């Protein structure tokens, strides 16, 4: 018979055996649970606080993003605008921005046109503009004044969107509960009562949090309280069906996760709007987006809205928030087939620069190398441009900046080969002349035909003026915006940055005469950039570069003219004989001064009537 001491090792062995058996059973159960787990789109939301415990790194990387701060309660920590009693005058209305302790107020016109003090309840945006919401009765209203974060100044939203002069001050005073709520928050529910015409909106989390892309996560969080299940997932790398990982979805479903916000859409069928307004957006990541909505396209019908103004004439979106549509139109998307391009090929939600959500290497040719390594390797030969220059940057030719949004032009997401004839066939900016700003569309077409051994288009335009100037002075509003931006874009610079100073007097014309504040803003910004870059090589410009006058694109015409005059005089005062002379397509006389008759002629071709191109 075993003694007490003799039994001890046996007891330990039995305990070890029992422990191992229990662990084995737990592992088997966890494996079975993982394999049988299904997505639970109707599960409650866990919120980011519920995700943080197991995903601290993802939580930390998400906290760096502008997604997180898209919508916030108005607090001293979240409000970035100048509320120190500052006044701002736009469209004949002087508004004031005030702070009392931890509360923020905007004195401006109310919906009835009377001056009133509005308390700021929430903020929207944190990257370029910060917009402000006030509470009125059952709803939140977006006020038409915003803080321009990058330029640290107030602006009227009519200058941020493409509104012509004379637009009503309150055009952008708009309902939040039935519009912005959907894409700027997680789990939005407007709670609209159709009988009583009242909102009772709520969101699972303000801003764009984990579950906006991964779907409701409470079921996932509950099941993964089991550590054995977590270790099983970690060591096997198996997908957990209780949560959506966009990169594990098929290309078509993966891009829909982003596309449900980065692609303006319409409820489908249209009667579904009632469900959207009362219960919220039924789409959950992993669903087929087409079940609930259809992307807004050039041929879509939206009562009371001319949607064609949002697209170039070839159907390419020309506003931001249509990136999804652009991708769907791209050859590289391959119709959503396996191996097709997805958002995740270039963008990263948890790494890289929060601006654009791009790792540094994805801002250059490396973005294309994973699929087109051979072309990237021989980019100079492929593009016909000097190696290392902006002409060999894939973005410049295949994703040119032809999309307007929030006072900037952004790369199109319709990836296609450059084709100069688009400039006159579809009246749209085209890659070649966005960089070669001193050349005509005709020159671009002839050069392109020569370089790539293509037939010269039969319908070559007669116009010989540089396309950037033709568009700046005679294009429609988005063409003008693209031209104004391109004239100051670094890509358009020759090796000698002084070589683009000729753009200054033409940009001054746009600053003074253009009927859209947004275009005037872009023109002034480009003029400043051109001068600043040239000053780096030409010391006599340094003083002017440091003392450019303040320009408010919504200012009275006389004040705008005064600033435009400053830029004109700067050009006239330069020793222009020392500057590289641009191509003859730039209408400058022998003294390198703009030819007024050409400017007037182009100005007469600008399309009328003006259109407002809003959100």
């Amino acid at each position, binding site marked *: 018979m075993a003694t007490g*001491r003799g039994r*001890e090792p046996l007891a330990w062995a039995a305990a070890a055996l029992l422990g191992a058996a229990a662990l084995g059973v737990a592992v088997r159960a966890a494996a079975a649970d993982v394999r049988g787990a299904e997505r639970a789109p109707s599960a409650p939301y866990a919120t980011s606080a519920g995700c943080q*415990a*197991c995903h*601290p790194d993802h939580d930390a990387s998400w906290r760096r993003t502008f997604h997180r701060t898209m919508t916030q309660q108005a607090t001293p920590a979240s409000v970035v605008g100048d509320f120190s009693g500052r006044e701002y005058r736009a469209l004949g209305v002087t508004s004031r921005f005030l702070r009392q302790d931890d509360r923020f107020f905007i004195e401006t016109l109310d919906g009835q046109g009377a001056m009133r003090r509005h308390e700021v309840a929430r903020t929207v945006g944190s990257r370029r503009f910060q917009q402000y919401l006030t509470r009125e009765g059952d709803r939140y209203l977006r006020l038409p004044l915003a803080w321009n974060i990058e330029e640290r100044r107030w602006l009227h939203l009519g200058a941020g969107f493409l509104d012509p002069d004379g637009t009503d001050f309150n055009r952008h005073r708009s309902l939040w509960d039935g519009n912005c709520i959907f894409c700027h928050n997680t789990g939005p529910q407007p709670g609209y009562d159709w009988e009583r015409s009242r909102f009772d909106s709520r969101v699972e989390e303000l801003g764009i949090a984990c579950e906006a892309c991964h779907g409701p996560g409470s079921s996932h969080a509950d099941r993964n309280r089991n550590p054995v299940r*977590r270790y099983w997932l970690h060591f096997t790398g198996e997908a957990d069906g209780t949560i959506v990982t966009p990169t594990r979805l098929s290309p078509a479903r993966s891009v829909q996760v982003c596309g449900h916000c980065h692609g303006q859409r319409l409820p489908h069928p249209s009667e579904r709007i009632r469900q959207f307004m009362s219960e919220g957006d039924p789409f959950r990541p992993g669903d087929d987006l087409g079940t609930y909505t259809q992307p807004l396209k050039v041929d879509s019908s939206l009562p009371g809205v001319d949607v064609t103004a949002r697209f170039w004439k070839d159907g390419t979106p020309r506003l931001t928030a249509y990136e999804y549509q652009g991708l769907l139109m791209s050859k590289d998307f391959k119709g959503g087939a396996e191996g097709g391009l997805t958002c995740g090929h270039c963008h990263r939600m948890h790494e890289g620069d929060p601006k654009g959500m791009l790792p540094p290497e994805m801002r250059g040719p490396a973005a294309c190398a994973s699929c087109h390594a051979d072309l990237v390797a021989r980019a100079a030969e492929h593009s016909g441009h000097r190696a290392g220059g902006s002409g060999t940057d894939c973005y410049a030719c295949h994703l040119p900046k032809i999309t307007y949004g929030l006072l900037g032009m952004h790369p199109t997401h319709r990836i296609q080969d450059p084709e100069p004839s688009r400039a006159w066939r579809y009246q749209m900016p085209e890659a070649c002349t966005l960089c070669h700003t001193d050349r005509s569309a005709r020159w671009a077409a002839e050069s392109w035909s020569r370089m790539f051994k293509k037939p010269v288009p039969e319908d070559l335009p007669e116009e010989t003026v540089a396309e950037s100037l033709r568009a700046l002075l005679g294009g429609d509003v988005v063409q003008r915006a693209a031209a104004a931006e391109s004239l100051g874009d670094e890509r358009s610079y020759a090796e000698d940055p002084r070589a683009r100073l000729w753009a200054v007097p033409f940009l001054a014309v746009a600053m003074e005469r253009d009927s859209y504040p947004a275009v005037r803003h872009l023109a002034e910004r480009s003029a400043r950039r051109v001068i600043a870059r040239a000053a780096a090589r030409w010391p006599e410009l340094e003083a002017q570069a440091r003392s450019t006058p303040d320009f408010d694109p919504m200012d009275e015409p006389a004040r705008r003219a005064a600033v435009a005059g400053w830029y004109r005089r700067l050009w006239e005062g330069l020793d222009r004989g020392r500057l590289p002379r641009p191509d003859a397509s730039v209408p400058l006389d022998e003294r390198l001064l703009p030819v007024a008759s050409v400017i007037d002629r182009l100005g007469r071709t600008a399309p009328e009537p003006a259109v407002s191109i809003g959100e």
Partner: protein
Amino acid sequence: MAKSAQSPASSPPAASDAAARLHGRAGWTLLAVGLAFGVTLEALEAFRVSWVVADLWRNRLWALAHFHADAMGLLNLVYRPWARGAGESRALAIGSALIPVGFLLGGFAHSEGDPGLGILLVPVGAALVISVAVRQAIRAWRG
């Protein structure tokens, strides 16, 4: 070998030489290693070595390894007069080592939300140490 005598809890019996030697070695070694590791951790923090500082799990688990090595070292030293039999002494010595080693290994190759698999040594070590503590407690109550 001197036979251990039953004594009141207030006056612990003399431990066997072998057990005393074992716990002395285990205790001082754990203390020496644990304290040295603690100083190393502090130095890594001081020089902001991101491999440790920026990894919250590693930071936390290694701090636990440092703390438990010290605590288990002290426990072994304090335990010497109460030592009862080679089995219990071995259990305590092995358990005392497994706990900090488990925390240390748990800091390697861990996932975003959980320690590395080495952490499994911690409950095994804890079971050994607790089993000794429970038996000592029972003896203490029995007088």
